C-alpha cells in the first residue's frame, strides 16, 4: 500500500528493520503493576512470548486476567503515573521498552497499530472519518492532502464501506457500530503496519457483524502479510482464526499452544472450563452450561500456589501451596502451568473421578459448588 510514496524520513529506521531475522515481537518477562490506594495491582505478572511475522496469536482470558493491560503494556500505552513496568519488549529487533514517547510515536500506527474495543470512544467524534485516516498517512508516509484523501477512500473501500467517496466526509456518529469498527481497522492499517493488536475488536457487536469484521481482518492480514494479536474473552472467536493461543489467568500465562493442540489436548483445567462455558449450538436446548464458579482473583492479593486453585474442581493441597511453573511435557511448543494437567480431558489429580469436559452432572456440581460469589471488595479481603 502506498508505502513507496513515503517521503518521511523518521520512519526509515523501522523500514530498514524489515530485514531483521527471528520473531517479529519478543516479549520477555513483562510485568506491569499499578499503584492504587488499596495496594499494588499486579495486572501482568511475568509474561513471555513471541509472535512470528504474518502469524496470528490469540490472547484469551476473563475480565481481570490482565489481557488488556498486557496489550497496552506491549504498545507502551500506559498511564504516565503510578505504573511500574519491567521486562522487555522487542519489536523487529528494536527494544520498545527502552524508547521514549517521541520514538514510540514513530512506531505507533506505522509499524505497530491497535484496534480498540469501542470504536465510538476510540474515534474522534468531531472529526470526519476521512481526516482521521489521513492524519497518520500524512504523519508517517508524508503524503500530501490530495494523495492522502484518495488513499483514505481506497482504504475505506478495502474495509468494505460502501460508497467510500461520500462516507469519507462522514462523522463517526453517522455510522453503525460495525461500520465504525471498519473505520478503526482502516485507520489501523493505513500505513501498512507489520503487527496489529486487536483488543476485543468485536465485543459489543452483533454476532453477524462480528463474523464480518473477523473475516475482513483475516483477509487483510493475508493480503498484507501482517501479524495479528487478537485479544478476546471468547475462545470461540480465536478457535478458527489464531495460529497460536495464549490463555491468561490472573496476570499470568497458564497455557500456550498451537490452536489445534490447545483444543485437542487441553492441559489446564481453566482452559477446559473456558471452552465448556460457551453455549454450543449442537447441544439440546435447555442443556446446562458448565459455568466456572466464582470470579478471577484480586490481583492485589492473588491466592498462593496456583492462582486458579480456589476455583479449580481438582485442586489439591499442593496446588494451594506451590505455584506451578509454566512447563512442557512432550511437545516443546505446548506450555502449561498446572501440577495435575488433564490427559484426554481427565484430571491427573488424585481422587478426582470426574471429567471437566462435556457435562456429567457430577463434574458440574463440583465446579459450581465453589461458586459463592463474593462482592468486589474495596479493601482487598474478599477473595483472599
Amino acid at each position, binding site marked *: 500500500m502506498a508505502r513507496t510514496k513515503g517521503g518521511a524520513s523518521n520512519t526509515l529506521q523501522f523500514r530498514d528493520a524489515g530485514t531483521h531475522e527471528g520473531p517479529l515481537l519478543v516479549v520477555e518477562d513483562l510485568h506491569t503493576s499499578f499503584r492504587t490506594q488499596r495496594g499494588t495491582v499486579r495486572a501482568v505478572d511475568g509474561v513471555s512470548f513471541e509472535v512470528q511475522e504474518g502469524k496470528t496469536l490469540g490472547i484469551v482470558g476473563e475480565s481481570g486476567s490482565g489481557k488488556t493491560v498486557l496489550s497496552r503494556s506491549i504498545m507502551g500505552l500506559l498511564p504516565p503515573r503510578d505504573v511500574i513496568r519491567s521486562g522487555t519488549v522487542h519489536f523487529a529487533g528494536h527494544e520498545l521498552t527502552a524508547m521514549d514517547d517521541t520514538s514510540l510515536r514513530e512506531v505507533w500506527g506505522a509499524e505497530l497499530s491497535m484496534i480498540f474495543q469501542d470504536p465510538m470512544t476510540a474515534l474522534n467524534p468531531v472529526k470526519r472519518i476521512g481526516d482521521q485516516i489521513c492524519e497518520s498517512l500524512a504523519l508517517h508516509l508524508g503524503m500530501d492532502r490530495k494523495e492522502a484523501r484518495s488513499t483514505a477512500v481506497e482504504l475505506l473501500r478495502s474495509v468494505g464501506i460502501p460508497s467510500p467517496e461520500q462516507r469519507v466526509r462522514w462523522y463517526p456518529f453517522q455510522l453503525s457500530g460495525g461500520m465504525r469498527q471498519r473505520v478503526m481497522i482502516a485507520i489501523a492499517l493505513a500505513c501498512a503496519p507489520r503487527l496489529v493488536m486487536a483488543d476485543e475488536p468485536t465485543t459489543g457487536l452483533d454476532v453477524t457483524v462480528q463474523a464480518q469484521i473477523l473475516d475482513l481482518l483475516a483477509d487483510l492480514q493475508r493480503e498484507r502479510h501482517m501479524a495479528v494479536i487478537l485479544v478476546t474473552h471468547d475462545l470461540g472467536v480465536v478457535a*478458527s482464526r489464531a495460529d497460536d493461543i495464549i490463555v491468561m489467568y490472573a496476570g499470568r500465562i497458564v497455557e500456550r499452544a498451537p490452536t489445534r493442540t490447545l483444543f485437542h489436548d487441553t492441559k489446564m483445567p481453566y482452559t477446559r472450563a473456558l471452552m465448556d462455558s460457551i453455549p454450543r449450538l449442537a447441544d439440546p436446548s435447555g442443556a446446562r452450561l458448565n459455568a466456572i464458579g466464582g470470579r478471577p482473583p484480586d490481583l492485589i492479593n492473588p491466592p498462593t500456589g496456583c492462582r486458579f486453585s480456589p476455583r479449580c474442581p481438582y485442586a489439591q493441597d499442593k496446588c494451594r501451596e506451590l505455584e506451578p511453573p509454566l512447563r512442557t511435557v512432550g511437545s516443546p511448543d505446548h506450555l502449561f502451568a498446572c501440577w495435575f494437567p488433564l490427559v484426554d480431558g481427565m484430571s491427573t489429580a488424585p481422587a478426582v473421578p470426574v471429567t471437566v469436559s462435556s457435562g456429567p452432572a457430577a463434574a458440574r456440581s463440583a465446579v459450581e459448588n465453589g461458586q459463592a460469589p463474593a462482592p468486589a471488595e474495596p479493601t482487598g479481603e474478599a477473595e483472599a
Partner: protein
Amino acid sequence: MTDTATTEDSTVHEGAVVLDVHDLVVEFKSGRQRVQAVSGVTFQVRQGETLGLVGESGCGKSTTGRTLVQVQPATSGSIVYQGINLNGLKGKQLRQLRTKIQMIFQDPISSLNPRRQIKDIVAEPLVIWKRGTKEERAAKVREMLEAVGIDPDVAGDRLPSEFSGGQCQRISIARALMADPDLLICDEPVSALDVSVQAQILNLLADLKQQFRLTMVFIAHDLAVVKNVSDRVAVMYLGKLVEIAESDELYRAAAHPYTEALLASIPEPDPDHVSGHKALTGELPSPLNPPSGCRFRTRCPYAQERCSAEEPLLREVAPGHQVACHFPVGEASGMVAPPAQTAAVADN
C-alpha cells in the same frame, strides 16, 4: 438435566397461552418521517415457556420487549396478557399488571442506582407497593439475594460500583423477582458479560425459572445463547418476524435464509469447525425505507424476482414451525440451499 428439559417440553405444549401478541406495530417519529421499529409482529407465549427473540441490532427485538412491559407504547395491535389487553391500559391497572411482568436489562451496572445500597435497591419494588412490614421486606430481600447467589450479609450495605458486571446482573434479577412476577422479559441480559460469567447467569436464569415458575421472553442477538435458554425461538428481521420454531427444530432445520446466516455467524469453539455458510454481507437496511417485498431480499443469497414483488407471509412448514419466505431453505418445492450449506448445519 436433559431429562428435565424433555419434561418441560411436554408441559409447554399443555401450557395455556399467557401472552398473546397480535399484529404489534411500534412507530417512532424521525424528523418529519415516521419509522416503524416493529411492523406487525404476532406471537404467543405459553405458561412456563421461554420464548427467545433473536435478531441483529435494529431488528425491533428490544422495542418488542419494551412494549410488553409498556415502557414503550404500541402504535397499534394488541398485547393480551392473561386476558387483559395491555395496549392502551393506563394508570393503576397498568401499574398493577406491571408487578406481574418484570424486565431485566442489558447493562446491569447502569440499571442499578449507583448511590443506593443493594438492600434498598432490591427492596424498592415492595416499598413502592407498600407490601409487608419493614422486617418482612428485609426477609424477602435476603431470600431473593440468596436465590441469585449473592450473600446478603456481605452485599446488603454496599453500592453497585463495588460489584462486577455479572454480580450486578444477579442483583437486577433479584430486584425483578421481588414483586413475584409471572413473566420475566430479559433484554440481552448476558451480552455485556464474559463467556464465563454468561454461563453462570444463564444457569441461574434456568434455575430461577423452575424455582419461581416463571414464563420468560429472552431477547438476544446470539442464537447459541438464545437456543440454550429457550423452548421456542422467534427470529426477527427489520421489524418483522421471519421464522418461529422450537429451538432444536430451528437449529436442525432452519428454513429462513436469515436464520441460516445467523447460525453460521456463531463462532464455534472448535478449530476444525468449517462453516459452509458465507458470513452475512451488508448491513440492515434503513427501517425508514424498508425494501419492498421480503425485507431480507437485499442480503439474501437466494433472492428471486418474486421476493421483491410480493411480501412473504408467515406460514407453517412443519408443526409449530412457521417461516416467512417464498423459497425456504431445504424445501423441495423451492430454492434448495447448495449442499455445502445444508451439510454444515448437519455437522455442527
